[in-house]
């Protein structure tokens, strides 16, 4: 069985200069996989490359054995994305935000879309907020609405960019629990970029540590295990700041 996401010897960066290279990872279905690293190490660049906003400088990224171009040729993207600031379309209500991906890709019948969108909003705890505009939502609600939008097309993979950024510890914990519930309930594979160690220990099955100075990944494994026995001292120091 092919991996949900397969990253084969990928190099990412801007122009011709690689920010990270030699990234080689298979992410299994239903796994919560974290990309961790110091600031400027290329975590977000890797995420942007994975979701097709930037081309990979080298290597290949496969979703269930097919490239993104091949997947897109046959319809919708195989993933949903939660951007760091939510990136909700500000001119639309919460419900319209969730319905737009369905409209654009002809997902379900037009008559069924509002009901589906309401269900996704209810899943993330936003029942009743359908007619509210993003500007009237709190940071945590915006993140959850964006998560509902990311779920709109029933993706097999969810990419989360710094989901806890800007949230208070309680909202962050709730979001983590929601991600765990979605993984358990829907079998979704989750790839998240984070520097929140508490969140990392709480939900990630495995993590990849990107070293900003070496410009390559230096550790791959379960967070708790790496905190104890990673070969790189930098990784151990990083993870020991909030050991479980």
């Amino acid at each position, binding site marked *: 069985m092919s991996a949900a996401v397969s990253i084969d010897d990928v190099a990412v960066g801007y122009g011709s200069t690689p920010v990270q290279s030699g990234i080689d990872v298979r992410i299994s279905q239903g796994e919560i996989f974290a990309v961790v690293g110091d600031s400027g190490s290329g975590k977000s660049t890797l995420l942007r490359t994975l979701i097709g906003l930037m081309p990979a400088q080298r290597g290949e990224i496969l979703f269930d054995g097919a490239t993104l171009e091949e997947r897109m040729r046959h319809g919708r993207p195989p993933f949903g*994305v939660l*951007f760091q600031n939510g*990136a909700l*379309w*500000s001119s639309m209500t919460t419900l319209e935000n969730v319905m737009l*991906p369905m409209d654009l890709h002809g997902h379900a019948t037009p008559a069924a879309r509002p009901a589906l969108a309401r269900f996704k909003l209810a899943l993330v705890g936003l029942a009743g907020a359908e007619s509210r505009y993003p500007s009237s939502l709190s940071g945590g609600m915006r993140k959850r609405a964006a998560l509902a939008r990311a779920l709109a097309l029933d993706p097999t993979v969810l990419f989360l960019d710094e989901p806890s950024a800007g949230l208070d510890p309680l909202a962050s914990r709730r979001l983590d629990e929601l991600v765990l519930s979605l993984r358990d309930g829907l079998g979704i594979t989750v790839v998240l970029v984070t520097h929140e160690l508490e969140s990392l220990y709480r939900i990630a099955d495995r993590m990849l540590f990107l070293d900003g100075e070496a410009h390559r990944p230096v550790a791959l494994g379960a967070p708790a295990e790496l905190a104890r026995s990673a070969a790189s001292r930098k990784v151990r120091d990083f993870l020991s700041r909030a050991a479980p």
Partner: protein
Amino acid sequence: MRAFADPFSNSPNGELTLRLPEGGIDPAWLARPLLELGLDGSQSSRALRVEMPPSGRWTSSEAAFLARCVTELAPCGVKGLPHELAKLLGLASTVQGARGIEEPVLPSGRYAAEAAAFLALLGEIVLYLPRFLAGRARMRRADVVEALAESSSRALPIVAITNLLMGAILAFVGAVQLNAFGAGIYVANLVGIASVRELTPILTAIVLAGRTGASFASRIATMQGNEEVDALTALGVRSAEFLVLPRVVALGLLMPLLYVYGCAFAVLGGMVTAGPILDLSVVAYAAQTKLAIGGVHFAIGGLKALVFGVLVALIGCHCGLRSPRSAAGVGSATTSAVVGSIVGVIALDAVFAVCANVLKI
């Protein structure tokens, strides 16, 4: 003015000595080659001893100068640096994240990249147009309505005022000059032809560049900063189709209508001004205007309006999409859109003038 002795000298033990003066270094040293500061080229392989000022104080200027000396004289080693200063210089010598920084682009390269991106956007719009005409383009009806409102009803008052005043100004100038030759009635020809053929399309386009084009640029630049454009792209939807096409179609459709509307106000402005000055009746002025303006003038003016409308919308959207992802980026995108549109409209008008001259129309 304070005199500074050269900081480098030879120690009796064969070491190179760098003496930092009390009260700080000469700021000019930061930019001067070390060889001009008493450093002999043959001394560069020896050890460097730093003598700190008696007060033991330093500022970032001394630290910057020392960092340069350490870098340029690195092979010989450095002695005498206070521990705190050595630590500071250690920080400065660590280059972090340099590989992630894009190489600077020359202005000529930047303009070429902008031009290439603009042409690519134009190409995408041309490719999406048949899909739009077939009703299969991926866009929201609400966005099209919003773009239409932005380009029409909200622009009506300003288009009317500017064209009315332009017609009045032309009539003022024309009435004085033509009346001297007993040809006052021809002020209707002057106002009619000048506004229908040249000035109304340009003026309306410039007004819309400042109003609607700037609005398109700021709206899309804000979306860019909020990652809303990325969210669309991640869904497999091209921003050219979803964001640009409705705006280009709206302005392209409405500019010819706004042009006709503007022409009416320009002629009206000429009429209400020239009438009292030259004692012309409304009927006489209108009849002369009708005689003066032919279908060709309207066709040329209308075509210009259509092309200018598309250009203003395209430049506005292009500047929005290419804006940096920051609050300042919204401002710079808006400025670029207005300036680019005005220059583009005038340049295209010159092309129209040359073509009309060649075709003798």
